[in-house]
C-alpha cells in the first residue's frame, strides 16, 4: 500500500468494525501472519491485565498499563529485526515482548527478582536486554529520544543496515529532548523512527492543553522530515506505516516521525485516578467501538479465519502461558543485598570497595 505523510485523518486499513479497506492484500501478509498478529494482541493484553493485578494485590509498586494501545505496540514492533535497537518509555512492554522480552522477565521486573534483566534496579516501567537490543528506559520523560538518535547516528557512521525505533508519548513531545532529537535526526539523516503513541493524555493533561498543533505528526515538517499520522488502534495500519518507515531508514533515506492516534483504557499508572479528568462516556466509546483487538478479530472473522471455538482456545492458552510466566518469575530469588554496590562502574572504585567491606560486615558475609 502507499503510505502518505502528513494526512489530515489517520491512515487506516480496517474500519472500526473490521471491514478491510482496499489495501489489506497489498500488505503481503499471509494467513498465518494474520493469526500470529492476533495472538500477539491477545497475549499482550493478558500480560497487561496480570501486571496490573500484581499492583492491586500489593505485590508490585507501580504499573503503567498498555490496554487500548496494543495495536500501536504490536504493529510497530513486528517490522523490527532482531538487530534493530528499541528505546522505550514507561509504557512499552507490548513492543518489548514482540522484540523478545519474555513475560517471565517482565513479571520478574515488576517483582524485583533476579530474572529481571535489570536485577530489580528500576521502578517497574521496563527493563533492558542487550542481546535483544532493548535499552532500559529511565523514568525521565523524553530522555530516550536524543539517546536513540545517537544510536541511529552511530548505525549510520558504522554503515550497518540496522535502524532504531524510539517510543514516547504525546506528553514527551513537549520536552526539549523531542525537539532536539528531531533536529539531530533530520540533520544527520539518521535511520530512526520516532514513534509517538498519542493516547491523548499525559497523566491528566489533554492533548489540546499539551500542544496547539492539530496533530503531532505535522511537527515533523518543521524539522525537515516526514510525519505520518496513523490509526493507532488499527494494527495493520500501524504495521504498514512502521514497515514503510523502517524500510526507508534501512535504505538510508533518513528518519520519520509516526504518530499513532490511540487511547489508553487504564489510569496513567497504578498511582493515578483517571475518573477525575476523563469526560463521561469517552472511555466507553473507545473501549466499545474502537478496541484494537476486537477490531482485528472482526476482520479475521470476516475472512473466515476465526470463530468462537478458536477464540476460547486462544484465551485459555494465553492465560496458561501468563500464569506459567508469573510462576517462573516468582520462583526467581530477590537480588542479594550486596549487589546494591555492583554496576555503578565496571569495577568497584576504591571508595566502593571500602563500602563493600562495610556492607559485607553488616550482612555477615565476605
Amino acid at each position: 500500500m502507499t503510505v502518505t505523510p502528513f494526512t489530515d485523518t489517520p491512515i487506516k486499513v480496517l474500519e472500526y468494525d473490521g471491514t478491510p479497506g482496499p489495501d489489506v492484500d497489498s500488505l503481503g501478509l499471509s494467513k498465518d501472519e494474520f493469526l500470529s498478529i492476533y495472538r500477539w494482541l491477545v497475549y499482550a493484553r493478558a500480560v497487561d491485565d496480570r501486571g496490573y493485578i500484581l499492583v492491586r494485590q500489593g505485590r508490585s509498586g507501580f504499573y503503567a498499563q498498555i490496554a487500548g494501545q496494543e495495536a500501536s505496540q504490536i504493529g510497530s514492533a513486528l517490522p523490527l529485526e532482531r538487530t534493530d535497537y528499541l528505546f522505550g518509555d514507561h509504557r512499552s512492554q507490548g513492543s518489548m515482548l514482540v522484540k523478545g522480552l519474555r513475560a517471565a522477565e517482565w513479571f520478574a521486573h515488576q517483582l524485583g527478582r533476579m530474572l529481571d534483566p535489570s536485577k530489580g534496579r528500576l521502578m517497574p516501567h521496563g527493563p533492558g536486554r542487550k542481546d535483544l537490543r532493548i535499552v532500559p528506559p529511565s523514568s525521565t520523560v523524553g530522555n530516550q529520544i536524543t539517546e536513540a538518535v545517537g544510536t541511529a547516528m552511530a548505525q549510520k557512521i558504522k554503515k550497518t543496515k540496522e535502524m532504531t525505533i524510539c517510543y514516547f508519548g504525546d506528553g514527551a513531545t513537549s520536552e526539549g529532548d523531542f525537539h532536539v532529537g528531531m533536529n539531530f535526526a533530520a540533520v544527520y539523516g539518521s535511520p530512526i523512527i520516532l514513534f509517538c503513541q498519542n493516547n491523548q493524555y499525559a497523566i491528566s493533561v489533554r492533548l489540546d492543553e499539551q500542544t496547539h498543533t492539530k496533530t503531532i505528526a505535522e511537527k515533523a515538517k518543521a524539522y525537515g522530515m516526514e510525519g505520518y499520522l496513523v490509526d493507532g488502534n488499527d494494527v495493520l495500519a500501524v504495521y504498514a506505516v512502521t514497515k514503510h518507515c523502517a524500510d526507508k531508514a534501512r535504505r538510508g533515506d533518513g528518519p520519520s516521525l509516526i504518530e499513532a492516534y490511540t487511547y489508553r483504557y487504564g489510569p496513567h499508572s497504578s498511582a493515578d485516578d483517571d475518573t477525575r479528568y476523563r469526560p463521561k462516556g469517552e472511555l466507553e466509546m473507545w473501549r466499545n467501538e474502537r478496541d484494537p483487538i476486537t477490531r482485528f478479530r472482526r476482520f479475521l472473522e470476516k475472512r473466515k479465519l476465526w470463530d468462537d471455538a478458536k477464540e476460547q482456545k486462544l484465551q485459555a492458552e494465553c492465560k496458561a502461558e501468563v500464569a506459567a510466566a508469573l510462576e517462573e518469575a516468582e520462583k526467581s530469588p530477590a537480588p542479594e543485598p550486596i549487589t546494591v554496590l555492583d554496576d555503578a562502574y565496571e569495577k568497584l572504585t576504591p571508595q566502593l570497595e571500602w563500602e563493600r567491606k562495610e556492607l559485607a560486615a553488616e550482612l555477615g558475609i565476605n
Partner: protein
Amino acid sequence: MATAQAEKKQTTSTMVQAVRSALIDEMSRDEDVVLLGEDIGIRGGVFLVTEGLIDQFGKDRVIDTPLAELGIIGAAVGMSLYGLKPVAEIQFIDFLFPGFDMLVSEAAKMRYRSAGEFACPMVVRSPYGGGVRGGGYHSQSPEAYFVSTPGLKVVAPSNPYDAKGLLIASIRDPDPVVFMEPKKIYRAVKNEVPEGAYEVPLGKAAVTREGKHVSLISFGAMVHVGLEAAELVKKDGVEVEVIDLRTLQPYDMDAIAKTVAKTGHVVLLQEAPTIGGFMGEIAAHIAEHHIGYLEGPLVRVGGWDTPFPYALEKAYMPNAERVKRAIQKTLNY
C-alpha cells in the same frame, strides 16, 4: 641507559596541544573514537583544540552538531551504547547544564539500571574555571555536581603531560568520564609531552612538590596557586607538600592518607564556591579516617559563595596570599 620511554620524542606543549595530540593518537588507534560538539569541525573548536582534525578524520568522526548540549550529550550516550567511543566537547562547562540531565540521568546510570548489560564509555571534555575574564557563565567550576553523581568519573588535569595521559586513559575507560580542562592554563603552562600514546591512570594523585609541614591538596589550575603559595611560605621555613588529585571521582585515598600522616596539617584548595564543594568531601574523608594525625584544623580555600563575577574575578578567585593565610591558620593552631 636510555629507557624506551625516554627515547620517545618529547615536545614542549601547551595543554591545548596535548589534548589535541591525545585525540589524534586515540582516533588513529581506534576508529570507534568519534568527536562531536559545536564548532569542533571546520572552526576547530572555540579554543582550537580540535583544529585540523576534521581534515584528518572526516566529518563522520569529527561531527559538528547543532547548537544543543542536550543533543550532544544525548547523542553521545546513544553512540556509546552502540559501541562507538564518543568524545563530546562542550564549549564551556557552564553550558553543560542543558545536557546535564542526559549526563546524570542517562550516562551515569545506564550501567546500573541495566545491571551491567549496557554501559556508556564516553568522555565529555570541557574547559572550566575562571581567570580569563569570562564572566559568570564562562568561568564556573561545577565539579561537585558530577562528583556526587555515582556512575561518573571526573578528571581535571593541571598540566599538559597529565592532560594527554589522563585523556587517553579516560577515552579507554569503560565508564563515562567528565574531563575538565582548566582553561586558564590552556596555553599558560607548558611541559614536555611525549609523542605517541601513554596513559596517566585515573584515580592516582601526584605529589607535585614534597614537603613536611603542611599538605596542600588541590587539582586543575589551582595546583599552580598552591605551588605559588608554597614558594611564599618557604621564606618562613615552611615546607608545603602539594598534592594534585588529578582525578576527583574516584579520588586517591592512599595519597591522601600518606600526606596527612606525613604533615598533620591540611589545606584544601578549590576554585569553586566553598559550600557544598568537592573539598568538603576530602575534609570529611580526612576527618573520618585520619583525625589522629591532625595537628590543626582542616582549612578550606575556595571561591566565595556567590556566582562567579566578571569584573571582580581577581577578588573572587583563590590566590596565593589567601592560601598562605590558610597555611598559617592550620600551622598556628
